[in-house]
């Protein structure tokens, strides 16, 4: 059986979650690998959530918010951009390939964009193979 990656998705309530709902409503088909956790704003996503997800067995983490400038809470997603770029720098030190974490934007009307991001992310993580903490520990001793 081929490897089916488990990806945790943190989606903001106002844009991305609605975009994901729209993909479903319009019966667009996409990889079922992303399991969605709703947050009010992508600004709520703590880097600790992402690290925690890997600790608990995720193979990838997807964070989706409103497009920059379109945040329901004015500027929460700008905070996310800063936090995520810092986290991206730390990931290799934690033994996590940077491609396993992705921040992107999906508006409430972009069901098709949601689908293409999910499919693309799933394929990338599938190519990377399962994330195993153990092999990680071996590598970094």
């Amino acid at each position, binding site marked *: 059986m081929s490897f*089916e990656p*488990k990806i*945790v998705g943190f989606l903001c*309530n*106002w*844009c991305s*979650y*609605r975009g*994901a*709902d729209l*993909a*479903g*409503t319009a*019966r*667009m*088909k*996409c*990889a*079922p690998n992303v*399991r*969605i*956790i*709703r*947050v*009010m*704003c992508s*600004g*709520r*996503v*703590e880097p*600790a*959530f992402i690290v*925690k*997800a890997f600790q*608990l*067995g*995720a193979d990838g983490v997807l964070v989706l918010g*409103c497009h920059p*400038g*379109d*945040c*329901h*809470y*004015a*500027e*929460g997603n700008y*905070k996310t951009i800063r*936090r995520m770029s810092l986290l991206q720098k730390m990931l290799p030190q934690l033994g996590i390939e940077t491609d396993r974490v992705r921040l992107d934007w999906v*508006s*409430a*009307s*972009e069901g098709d964009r949601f*689908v293409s991001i999910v499919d693309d992310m799933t394929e990338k993580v599938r190519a990377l193979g399962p994330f195993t903490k153990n092999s990680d520990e071996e590598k970094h001793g």
Partner: protein
Amino acid sequence: MEEVKIGIYVCHCGLNIADIVDVEEVTKYATTLPAVVVSRNYKFMCSDPGQNMIKEDIKELGLNRVVVASCSPLMHEPTFRRTIQEAGVNPYLFEMANIREHCSWITEDHKAATEKAKALVSAAVRRVYYHQPLEIKEVPVNPNTLIIGGGIAGIQAALEIADSEHKVYLVERDPSIGGHMIQFDKTFPTLDCSACILTPKMTSVGMHPYIELMTYSEVEEISGFVGSFKARIRKKARYVDEDKCNGCGVCVTKCPWKANSEFDLGLSERKAIYTPFAQAVPNIPVIDTEHCAYFLKEKCRACEKFCELGAIDFEQVDQIVEVEVGNIIVTTGYDSFDPTPITQYGYGKFDNVYTGLEFERICNAVGPTSGKIVLKDGSEPKSVAILHCVGSRDENYHEYCSRVCCMYALKYSHLIKERTDAEVYQMYIDMRCFGKGYEEFYKRLSEEGVNFIRGKVAEVTDRAINEDEQGKLIVCGEDTLLCKTIRVPVDMVILATALEPRSDAAEVAKLLTITQSADGFFLERHPKLDPVATMTDGVFIAGCCQGPKDIPDAVAQASAAATRVLALISKGRVELEAATAVIDEEKCSGCRICNLLCPYSAISFIEDEKVSRINEALCKGCGTCVAACPSAAITHRQFTMEEITAEIEGVLV
């Protein structure tokens, strides 16, 4: 803490879920999860029997947490929260697992869908375990309403609300209200005169004791939230004192300076001091400083000399007005598509190629030709072609259908037939006559002898290839019903131009924190069931700013938006977001990082105690401060670290 008892309910949603997800397996799986007391499935959980099932279990089994695995929480979370509240459980002790939109509807793989549904159920159960009851607080609703845009939609909404004796601020950026509708001559399919049905409404707005009309004004800033918004409005200087002017029009008559009339789309001229049209509301002129000799060369002042009331005021400056309102309705309308980029249609190159809106002015009795349908040289056309879908249903411009063009094209055909002896050719892709009485109007026009040719026009040219075409505009294309290429020589071409979003729609969306759909029009909260609300509570949309539509639809939407506003005013209070953030002052180090992060300035630093505190009435619950707090002193109610960690653990089973 009392023992947690969770009930889990898996919905079939008819076959929407059950066809793909093995609901029995999910139900069985749920019983293995911690603290689950009961696990059931049912055809429609949202139905009365479904809801009663939950209520009975709460009573019989003493459930104090409930999970429903069904559709999106954006659909039915309020329904089930109410259900458990009615059974005496705090509505926040509830969680939904979205196994329809995010699961059964996006895949055909039964096994994968069932596994995903289990994971989502496990996440919801683990999360709800940590939920705490929250208190719902209410604040009063300011009964005043702000309406942005004074076209037919804004006018309708303003009158509906004001007639119930609630104050309305109607803001219009042009010197008069009326919008596009007042530019029209007749309306389809009834052919009643547009001005005749609109001007009485405009006059009512102007005189209404509950409407404060602010024309030549623009909203610059909006702050606050549903129930208590603050708006900053710029009243642009008219250079005419509104209190003194009686609208006699002497200033306009005496003004020697001219400019192109915006109202007539440049087909006629107006003075440098002007009202856009005769029935303008308010009937108070404005001075166009770009064409007024006094502003350009510091001389003339003819208007001032002749104004007996001394109403001309060259010293006037823009005024900033602040108003407080509880709700906002956005009715900013549309822009007419500029067909210049479609060079093959010759707009701007040939004299007698007009846009739909320009032809509207030509037909109008008070338009540039006094309603005579004539060519640029003053002669009557012997043949006219109307080209459909210019800018609409075209991947190069707008993919959407502008909805009204087929019908206004039919209306023009009738007016041309009525007023001239010209042959009329309709070059269409599909005739879309969707409304009440529209198909009948199409049939009537077919009987009036209009030529309908199916096919998108390739080119409008003046290159004649035979004598009949000399001096004509030749419309070239394909008649797709006869499967042959055609060349139709005509005197006049009308382009049925698209309706498109206002060029500054993005800025307006930002001002109001509302969103735009992919086509640029403002996005409604739900395309079917919430068509006039937006994602921002207390901000409603109506008319063409939401998408192309005809007058009856714009009016219906405006009335709907007014009703929504009146419902909130009548209730008098709104619930505050309960899922707010709270600072544990014991843990707060007073670093103030959160103070600057908060987009609502809801966090302030208490100097005496050296800690930060959140104003709950201002907090909207985004959680940005929570994620940033280095001491983990801030808790986001309903999105706590514990709850989210449990959810992460749950989705990864």
